[in-house]
């Protein structure tokens, strides 16, 4: 009788332990995660003024489809839902709420544009939904992490880029007389201030004129003429594509041939080709880049460029020309997949943020060869390296290319 009771007690104990462990074993999955899928989503401009960037989410989708065809992330397939917000924050907000509350996505990934991301940042952080690898180069995503721990950017930030132009001019163009054209808002001023601090006290004396323009101004002719009259031989542009193209064309037409520095977001092959078509001489314009240029003779046969074209042919059908926007999408999606792999199994939202804050990735096939992605608890900027590149018109497929030169710049925060 006695051992029977003991046996029963023992059995009950075992049963109890078994229930407790099985209860913890069958843990609740985070929203957007099932045994077979991980659902992520984002908002992008497919219409409106920034619709040109729609190549980015399509390349990202192509990469996710490619990963799914090769087994997915730890056996789970990535489901990527994207909505067109037309670059209008008032549309981004309800669409993001829809992604979170109706589509129940695991994370908001890659959403594009400073204003749309600013509009949804507080909401996503209040809901503890990761807002990751946002496609904008402002510094907020990396600096405001104490207030917004669920948000992180990806690409190098604008001030870091400006400092690289400054360093290059200081070391390589000692007799520079710098003329600057900048957009008169936070975007242009961030660039300008970082550029000045990068030049240092002695370098700043090289600035002969800094002209601002309003984003609404119909023409920047007056400013470009003023820069020429001031005797500048080095032309630095912190502007947006339309004004950049116009300024480069005007410079040529008034017979001014300075060394040109064009900031990254305005320096794609497409924009340069437009400037050339309108009569601008943009041969040799310098920018700073971080993704592969599939049109550059030096990079077109790199494994990344070859694999990228293969993936885009398969899953982003029928494009004849690839540019840096395509490579941007692939590179960003690659980083996302790496982070998802390290976000736990099953992945959790907290795990994803943890993974993104302990990145130490080498070999992203679509970043410039040798670039790393590194983050830590205090460094929330994944890509911090840039390389200068010079524009040469008329590469393969009749489109020009930015050919990298010189050393790699580290822009650590």
């Amino acid at each position, binding site marked *: 009788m006695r051992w029977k009771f003991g046996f029963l007690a023992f059995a009950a104990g075992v049963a109890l332990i078994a229930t407790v462990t099985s209860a913890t074993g069958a843990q609740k999955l985070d929203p957007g995660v099932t045994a077979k899928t991980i659902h992520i989503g984002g908002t992008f401009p*497919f219409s409106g003024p920034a619709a040109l960037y729609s190549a980015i989410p399509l390349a990202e989708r192509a990469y996710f489809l490619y990963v799914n065809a090769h087994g997915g992330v730890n056996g789970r397939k990535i489901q990527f839902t994207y909505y067109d917000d037309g670059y209008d924050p008032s549309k981004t907000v309800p669409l993001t709420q829809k992604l979170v509350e109706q589509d129940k996505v695991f994370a908001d990934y890659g959403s594009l544009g400073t204003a749309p991301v600013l509009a949804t940042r507080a909401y996503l952080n209040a809901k503890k939904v990761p807002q990751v690898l946002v496609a904008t180069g402002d510094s907020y995503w990396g600096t405001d992490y104490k207030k917004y721990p669920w948000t992180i950017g990806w690409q190098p930030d604008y001030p870091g880029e400006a400092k690289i132009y400054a360093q290059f001019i200081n070391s390589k163009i000692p007799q520079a007389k710098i003329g600057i054209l900048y957009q008169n808002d936070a975007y242009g001023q961030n660039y300008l201030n970082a550029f000045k601090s990068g030049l240092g006290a002695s370098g700043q004396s090289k600035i002969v004129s800094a002209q601002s323009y309003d984003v609404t101004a119909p023409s920047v002719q007056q400013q470009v003429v003023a820069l020429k009259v001031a005797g500048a031989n080095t032309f630095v542009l912190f502007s947006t594509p339309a004004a950049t193209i116009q300024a480069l064309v005007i410079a040529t037409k008034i017979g001014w041939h300075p060394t040109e520095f064009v900031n990254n977001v305005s320096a794609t092959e497409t924009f340069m080709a437009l400037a050339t078509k309108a009569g601008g001489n943009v041969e040799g314009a310098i920018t700073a880049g971080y993704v592969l240029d599939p049109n550059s003779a030096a990079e077109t046969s790199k494994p990344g460029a070859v694999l990228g074209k293969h993936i885009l042919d398969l899953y982003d059908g029928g494009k004849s020309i690839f540019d840096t926007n395509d490579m941007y999408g692939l590179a960003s999606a690659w980083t996302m997949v790496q982070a998802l792999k390290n976000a736990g199994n099953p992945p959790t939202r907290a795990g994803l943020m943890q993974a993104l804050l302990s990145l130490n990735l080498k070999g992203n096939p679509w970043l410039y060869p040798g670039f790393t992605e590194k983050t830590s608890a205090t460094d929330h900027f994944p890509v911090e390296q840039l390389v200068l590149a010079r524009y040469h018109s008329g590469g393969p497929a009749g489109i020009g290319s930015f050919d990298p030169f010189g050393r790699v710049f580290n822009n650590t925060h």
Partner: protein
Amino acid sequence: MRAILGRLAICAAAAVVLALLPFTLSGLNQVLAARVALYFIAILGLNIVTGYTGQISIGHGAFMAIGGYTTAIMSADHHTNLIATLPLSFAIAFGCGVVVGLPASRLSGVYLALATLALAVSIPQLTLKFSHFTGARNGISVDGTVGYLWLYGVSWACAAILFVVAWLVLRGRTGRAFRAVRDSEVAAASSGVSLVLYKTLAFGISAAFAGVAGSLFVLATNGYAQPDEFSIFLSLYILIGAAVAGLGSLWGVMGGAAFVALLPNISQSAPLIRSIPVGGQDIAAGLVVVLVMLLLPTGLAGLLQRMALAASALRRRSGIPTAERG
């Protein structure tokens, strides 16, 4: 009298439905319903100036921007209670509407439309000029966060109050003067109706409505105001909403508002529209406007009126005494 009682009954029923509705909606749909309310207010305002007074405005997005920025700036810089910013938006937008309405009262037809178009294009750009005040491209956020149910309640409360205001303005002497100006300026003027006074007044009231709608618009955008939100397309969509609703009547406004507010979300999910690679939403909106203009030139309001007429004709024919006779 019976007609008024009937309308009051409809209003009371709508109020009960709207009061109970949020408890059956998810948070997401509460926000969508709040957006219907704010477009309801904006279209109501546009209807006063365009539908009742005959002055075409393509610039109501500008007044929404003024209202929206009033709320954002008062809350962010002066920590004003969000509800207290609403009457302020009403007042400031009214003032701006009067200022615009005075010169606009000398214009008519397509010239007025162009002048208001210029307004819609220029006002959002002004925010870039005064960046320390408005945050320029980076926008400005209200102090604190806005709950879904709060947003729903405040939006529909505003809509109800402004609907009553619109009804009171339009039913009496002022409304008659508005309609007289619309139907014939010469006849109105020779009957002693001051054209300048009533056109300006219509513009002011209409702008004030748009101002409140703009405040709610910013609150429904997570309390974030930014120039891209108030693009020319916002003005055009309000005009589209008014056309769908039917100009010159208050009863179709709800349909027009629902159309404008729900279209972005519907067009992102509807399989047919989604399959259009670029601008599916705008194409859908354009098609609906073409169809409405072809089939229902007087909008939803005209449809309701026609249905009411058909019903009473049917009743007469079948020998049932109509309300008027009985």
